[in-house]
């Protein structure tokens, strides 16, 4: 045990002190904070000025009903011809564009928007929807002789609020926990991606590290000082410790930044909206107990998933002579991970489909698929079975990988014969 500890400590301190570790540890939260702040920043600073649009309405009923808003102001100039309007309101006039409505707009739906600078999708959609509703109402009024249509419509307008709850068998609104596919979806994606990144990034770190040790021949010195199993486990656990440390630092930095850094750097408006986003997610997650459970599951699945794949990566690393050769094995190991990502996407349509269920039980896909399903509310027994299967298979793959590792690390260029392989499997 003391030897494993020494190896873990070496792997950990060497990696944590590397410049690349420090840089990624600090840059990643900046990136995440950027992602959090960007939407609110865009909302507050990315807003463009109010656009002036001149409406030349030849039909006679549209222009007066166009409604100006924060984005656009309409001014009516019905007595100009199209050509005159274009001459007067050219690029130098400061007018954004001319909306020319044909006389027969009711039948043809033909409207021209002649602009002086580049258009925006948002503005086009806004104008289009206004025009559509104005023209449709006008036709409705005319065809079916409804005079007080506007009043009638205003009368029946009701905004719909869809409240989704989790069924707890009582039907009592107070007791049921509200749940929302939207938040679950976001949370599921974030958790699944996190698992995916940890397995890929740190798994490959294990592979590279094994290959380097092998090619630099440190391995000869190491195995005359400790057993190959100790060496492999020490390496895997050391890198696992690095991964957990990095994630913990990220979490702490992101939370701290959203509490202190963002309010200090940006205006209160931005800060509030990014805080509200976090609060919104937290609020929807419900009580702290649920969050704590989620974190425990997350930690268990990250650790289990990483350990399972790390042992495979270690075995692959031991079997090759260079990192380039290792890429082949890397591709093979990546396949179930990518499959898991594909299944994860289907989970969001139906978290309880048979494929989602089985993919979250089979150990090679279970960490990613299960962690993505958990936010949707999965029976505890399913999670427990999935974890047990995951950890049992970790023990099996590690045992097997240790055997392969033991043989692989001393194969330089020459292939072992089958007899030799059998003999190694039998030796302690």
């Amino acid at each position, binding site marked *: 045990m003391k*030897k494993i500890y*020494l*190896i873990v400590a*070496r792997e950990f301190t*060497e990696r944590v002190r*590397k410049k690349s570790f420090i840089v990624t540890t600090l840059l990643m939260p900046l990136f995440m904070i950027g992602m959090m702040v960007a939407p609110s920043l865009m909302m507050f600073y990315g807003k463009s000025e109010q656009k002036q649009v001149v409406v030349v309405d030849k039909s006679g009923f549209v222009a007066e009903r166009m409604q100006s808003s924060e984005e656009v102001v309409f001014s009516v100039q019905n007595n100009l011809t199209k050509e005159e309007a274009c001459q007067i309101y050219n690029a130098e006039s400061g007018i954004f564009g001319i909306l020319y409505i044909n006389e027969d707009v009711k039948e043809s739906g033909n409207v021209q928007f002649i602009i002086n600078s580049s258009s925006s999708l948002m503005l086009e959609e806004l104008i289009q929807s206004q025009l559509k509703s104005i023209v449709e109402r006008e036709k409705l009024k005319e065809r079916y002789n409804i005079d007080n249509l506007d009043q009638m419509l205003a009368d029946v307008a009701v905004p719909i609020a869809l409240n989704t709850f989790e069924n707890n068998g009582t039907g009592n609104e107070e007791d049921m926990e509200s749940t929302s596919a939207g938040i679950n979806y976001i949370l599921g994606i974030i958790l699944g991606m996190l698992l995916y990144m940890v397995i890929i990034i740190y798994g490959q770190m294990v592979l590279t590290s094994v290959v380097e*040790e092998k090619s*630099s*021949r*440190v*391995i*000869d*010195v*190491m*195995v*005359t*000082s*400790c*057993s190959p199993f100790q060496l492999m486990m020490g390496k895997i656990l050391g890198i696992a410790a690095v991964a957990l440390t990095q994630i913990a630092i990220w979490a702490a930095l992101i939370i701290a930044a959203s509490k202190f850094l963002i309010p200090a750097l940006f205006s209160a408006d931005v800060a509030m909206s990014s805080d509200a986003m976090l609060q919104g997610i937290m609020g929807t997650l419900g009580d702290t107990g649920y969050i704590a459970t989620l974190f425990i599951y997350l930690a268990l699945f990250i650790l289990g998933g990483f350990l399972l794949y790390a042992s495979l990566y270690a075995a692959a690393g031991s079997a090759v002579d260079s990192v380039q050769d290792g890429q082949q094995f890397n591709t093979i190991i990546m396949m179930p991970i990518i499959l898991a990502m594909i299944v994860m996407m289907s989970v969001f349509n139906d978290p309880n489909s048979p494929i989602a269920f089985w993919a979250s039980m089979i150990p090679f896909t279970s960490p990613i698929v299960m962690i993505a399903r958990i936010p949707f509310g999965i029976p505890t027994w399913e999670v427990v079975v999935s974890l047990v299967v995951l950890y049992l298979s970790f023990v099996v793959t590690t045992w097997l990988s240790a055997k392969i590792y033991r043989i692989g690390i*001393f194969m330089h260029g*020459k*292939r072992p*014969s089958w007899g*030799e392989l059998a*003999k*190694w499997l039998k*030796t*302690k």
Partner: protein
Amino acid sequence: MDSILSVQHVTKSYTGHVALDDVSLEVPRGSVYGLLGPNGAGKTTLIRVINRITLADKGRVMLDGKEISVDDIFHIGYMPEERGLYKKMRVGEQAIFFARLKGLDRRDAEKRLRHWFERLGISDWWGRKVEDLSKGMAQKVQFISTVLHEPKLLIFDEPFSGFDPINANLLKEEILGLRDRGATIIFSTHNMASVEEICDHITLINKSRNILSGSVEEIRRTAGGNTFEITHRSSHEVLSEAVGELANVIGESRGVVGGYTATKIDVPRNEDIREVISRLNDRCELRAMQELMPSMNDIFIRAVNGTLK
């Protein structure tokens, strides 16, 4: 003979070729044991079999009369031919790490390391990264890591390669010092000069087989053909006449400093050397006479070529 390590009938083959063919040898306790042989003879494979890095197909390796176990290996000091150090790690920390793996505690390890670093004149390198060291420098660090825990059995694979003569000499002194303090040292080499100076025993491996084993003294004496070199001031003919039927003059005489001539003679084993000396003394102007021992280099080449008697 009290042997610490005994290799018995070890055979090891890889697909396509035999690396060791029925090799046996006994390493006496407290000796410096040289494993000699041309490149690719199987020296490194033998060392790896002893270390259990590779398993033998047949035969066994005994340490102190018991079959060698994994735990025994952890106590051996082993320096592989291709130096294995973590490139990105600092020298001092790395040496401490290896020492602790070998069971020393941190304080003890550091104390011993400081002592050794001073001794080999590399104290300045403590905080440097291994990748910044030259090959010879890294080798010193590796040497220290190998001997630090004072193992009773040390195995060096080509310890002198990569060293300049001064440092090679330093290393020789250290190896002899370790032997004097009770360690047994096995090392492989094709540097014959080092063998004559420091080895007590050797095994010569060629084409996967042990072709010559024994103490250096004994081997040189047996290989030597009772050849003597006589330094004198007589003519070649006078000398030939003097030794007569007792010895054969080999080749021509050659002049040496001070007007003397050197001539080699071969004295058959059954002749009394004192008779030869007395005849030479009577008839020639004799100045000196010495037995010519074959160098290990000669023996090596002759053994490998199969011309050794």
